[in-house]
């Protein structure tokens, strides 16, 4: 196995999030309508970081929720049960624009599950998708509205987004 390649370092991750935040502002005129929903394990942390940047730009608090999608996956009986995390959506999504935040967009199946999971909480006015990495290989008609970095990958490769690991800098790596 060869050494993993660093795709984004800590500073580049921060720049990507700042750019995504400005694109969200450009796309959504009213900040008061926007809420973020991060998908664990990494998307929720990205959503909190994004929420902080957006709150500074809009000068108003942007609510951030955690949306676990494990119970809505389409492959539950095809593999060992996934780790589930409590979903915390401390706001009403009805009539709001919900920006789903995930670390890596790959097959699109997580995004489909997330949209289903979101439906249980109300009827958003719009759903948008923000991802740090788009690695291609879609299996469903899903595309991201906001992308930190497009990374062409081989299907066997793995993209890991590592945030807040003690003693390690934040980074995104590609494993062969």
């Amino acid at each position, binding site marked *: 196995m060869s050494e993993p390649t660093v795709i984004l370092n800590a500073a580049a991750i921060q720049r990507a999030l700042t750019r995504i935040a400005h694109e969200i502002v450009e796309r959504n005129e009213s900040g008061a309508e926007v809420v973020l929903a991060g998908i664990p394990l990494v998307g929720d942390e990205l959503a909190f970081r994004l929420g902080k940047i957006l709150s500074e730009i809009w000068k108003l608090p942007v609510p951030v929720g955690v949306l676990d999608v494990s*119970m809505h996956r389409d492959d539950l*009986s095809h*593999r*060992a*049960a996934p780790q589930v995390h409590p979903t915390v959506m401390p706001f009403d999504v009805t009539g709001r624009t919900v920006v789903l935040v995930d670390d890596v967009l790959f097959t699109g199946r997580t995004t489909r599950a997330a949209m*289903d999971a979101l439906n*249980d909480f109300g009827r958003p006015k719009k759903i948008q998708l923000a991802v740090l990495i788009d690695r291609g290989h879609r299996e469903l008609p899903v595309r991201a509205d906001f992308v930190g970095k497009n990374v062409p990958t081989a299907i066997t490769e793995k*993209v*890991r*987004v590592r945030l807040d690991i003690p003693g390690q800098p934040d980074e995104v790596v590609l494993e062969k």
Partner: protein
Amino acid sequence: MSWNKKHLLDIESLTVDEIVTVLDTARAFKAVGERAIKKVPALRGKTVVNLFIEPSTRTRISFELAAQRLTADIVNFSADASSFKKGETLKDTARNLEALNADFIIIRHSASGAPHFLSRVVKASIINAGDGAHEHPTQALLDAFTIREHKEKIAGLNITILGDILYSRVARSNIWALTKLGAKVTLCGPSTLVPKTFEQIGCRVTHNVDDAIRDADIIHLLRIQHERQRKTMFPGIGEYTALFGLNMARLAKTKPDALIMHPGPINRGVEIDSEIADCERSLILEQVTNGLAVRMAVLFLLNGGKGPQEVAGN
């Protein structure tokens, strides 16, 4: 966290990691029960059979609701309305259910080991909902979940189980779960119902109730199971209540943050004073709520296939 088991037959054979996996998973399912829409599609298209060869209300309803909230189809099968009365064996009944493509069979049976037997003769996942005086694994898991919610961790806690230990599958499953998780377990009750042999599996045994509850963080009360006792094991209910019943005077001598649990059904005025059952320190109804979350978690975990746990690709 990890889970690769097909059946939930007992706590004795679970690892600490597996127990913790169920408890962690149940946290997420508890949140589902608190939403406006209390249903997720995780078990869509799966068939669950409640095979209750012994009467039960609470556990059966809890499993039924758990399956429904996961979008599974569930059928109830009870002993008095079934072909058991017509002489069919357990194996034949189960194989008939299998012929209907049941994915899960939840079994309660008066014979210890009945779920283990079923797991060897049918392809469905088997969940033990109580087998004789042997085990009642989901009860122990929901009790551990409830304790963890209140005390954060179980390791190091003093937990007293008070009552009919000898005939209690709840006690056995709880002893396994709590000792594996690092609690110090004390058993108390009449000497005929709490034999010293339990010391061999790491419990402290005492027949003095004040001694048993003085340092307890959790006092777990059990009902006297008249239906399982072949002969009278103590002089009378009145004497049991006088010697072992939890009343206000005894409660006053416990730690102020000691909490009271009971798997139900409770016998007010026998093992527990009515006032205590309804007091702030009683977790009895929370146990019922948590039971639903834990059973959803168990069904969800058992539904998993073989392969790796990791979500493909990232």
